[in-house]
């Protein structure tokens, strides 16, 4: 019953073999809400307007990541994708990038740092970077921009010194200018109307989200992502994911550093 509810809320399917994961998080939420039995907790969870709904979703999502993870895609971004994205844009035009799900912000901040460091045209366009996740607690952490040593393991000391300040011996905080450059906002990738609020993007990074969905939810999410791309826009999935097994609506683009997916350009455009 709980897993059915979670599936309806998020599209995440927990099958056999996930009992420990589910039980552990359920127990945490029951303790936090002072419900001694499951029936009472479930009634609390499903009460209209209950704040527990978001806490429940937050508890079941997976949030481990680090800076410059899967950097081959960042090389592909500045080496191949962006040139195509801006080919028909005048200087000063918006260039929109969406990191979804962004967890605690490592990916959208990585995109910003990578572009600042590796894309000579970075000052020529109005670049918007948005990080989104279904988990509002991780978005709050992302806005704060404070990370431990492990999250920074792929960054060299020059980048750390340039883009982070160190409030104490164990933590590094993304500098204010960079934090101000990324918008963090919640979204459920299965909710079409929610997704439409974000407009259309030149590039979407959607790594390691679809693997948590069942088949129908994957198709719905794929169509939402397609709709969220500008014609000619690119979708970057995780290295173990393949859109070809989910949907045939994207073009497959093979570049030197990565295979990515593209919403086909409209006739008469790049």
């Amino acid at each position, binding site marked *: 019953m709980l897993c059915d509810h979670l599936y309806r809320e998020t599209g995440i399917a927990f099958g056999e073999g996930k009992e420990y994961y589910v039980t552990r998080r359920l127990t945490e939420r029951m303790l936090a809400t002072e419900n001694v039995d499951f029936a009472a907790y479930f009634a609390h969870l499903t009460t209209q307007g209950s704040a527990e709904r978001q806490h429940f979703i937050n508890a079941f999502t997976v949030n481990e990541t680090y800076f410059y993870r899967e950097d081959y895609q960042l090389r592909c971004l500045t080496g191949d994708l962006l040139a195509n994205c801006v080919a028909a844009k005048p200087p000063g035009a918006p260039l929109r990038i969406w990191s979804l799900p962004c967890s605690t912000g490592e990916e959208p901040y990585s995109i910003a740092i990578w572009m600042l460091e590796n894309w000579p045209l970075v000052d020529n366009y109005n*670049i*918007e970077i948005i990080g989104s996740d279904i988990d509002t607690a991780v978005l709050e952490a992302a806005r704060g921009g404070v990370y431990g040593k492990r999250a920074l393991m792929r960054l060299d000391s020059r980048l750390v010194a340039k883009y982070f300040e160190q409030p104490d011996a164990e933590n590094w905080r993304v500098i204010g200018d960079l934090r101000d450059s990324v918008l963090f906002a919640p979204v459920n990738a299965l909710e079409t109307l929610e997704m439409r609020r974000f407009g259309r993007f030149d590039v979407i990074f959607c790594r390691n989200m679809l693997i948590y969905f069942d088949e*129908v939810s994957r198709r719905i999410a794929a169509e939402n992502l397609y709709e969220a791309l500008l014609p000619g826009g690119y979708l970057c999935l995780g290295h173990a994911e393949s859109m070809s097994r989910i949907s045939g609506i994207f073009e497959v683009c093979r570049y030197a550093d990565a295979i990515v997916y593209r919403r086909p350009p409209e006739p008469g455009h790049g």
Partner: protein
Amino acid sequence: MPLIRKAALLPAQTGGLDWQVEVSRLQAGSADERRAAARALAAEPRAVPALAAALNEPADARLREAIFTSLATQDNAASFAVMLCHLRADDAELRCLALDAMKLMPQQAASHLPSLLGDTDPDIRLSACELARQMPPETAAPLLAARLTSEPQVNVCAAAIEVLAEIGRPAELPSLGACAARFPAEFFLNFSVEAAADQIRARAG
């Protein structure tokens, strides 16, 4: 710094779905509007006939996929009936899209699998074997095994054997052997039966 501009979100859309407006868009909108309408109608069971009608028109593959996803999301007898109809389409792309969408509806598919495996058209029986691949072994394997004892088309037998190699259990081994015995001259089929039986035995330990 900052070199990067802070973004802004569009206002939230409010109001419920006017399904008849969406049907109008599906029938007469631009390509994007038609796709968006097809997707919006996933929430409206009364729209199944309109979605089905749109599949009968010349259309781009992306619209068709959106329609099939919406029908699969509805996951009811009416939406599955549309897929059954298109499983017999002359258009190969439409047949494949229908079969892919049927795989998204395991309960509906399970209830139709016996009749699909017994269909008079061998192409439908072949598709039914593929459909069985996605189902729980306890449902699909006995049906495939039963098919193997009487199926006249060697290609359908080969498709069923391939799926049984993945999902079969020791209980299906006699049917595999019986199928091999019915086609002694088909060396490929006999090889497939042996390979499938090996896989089943290996899984069973």
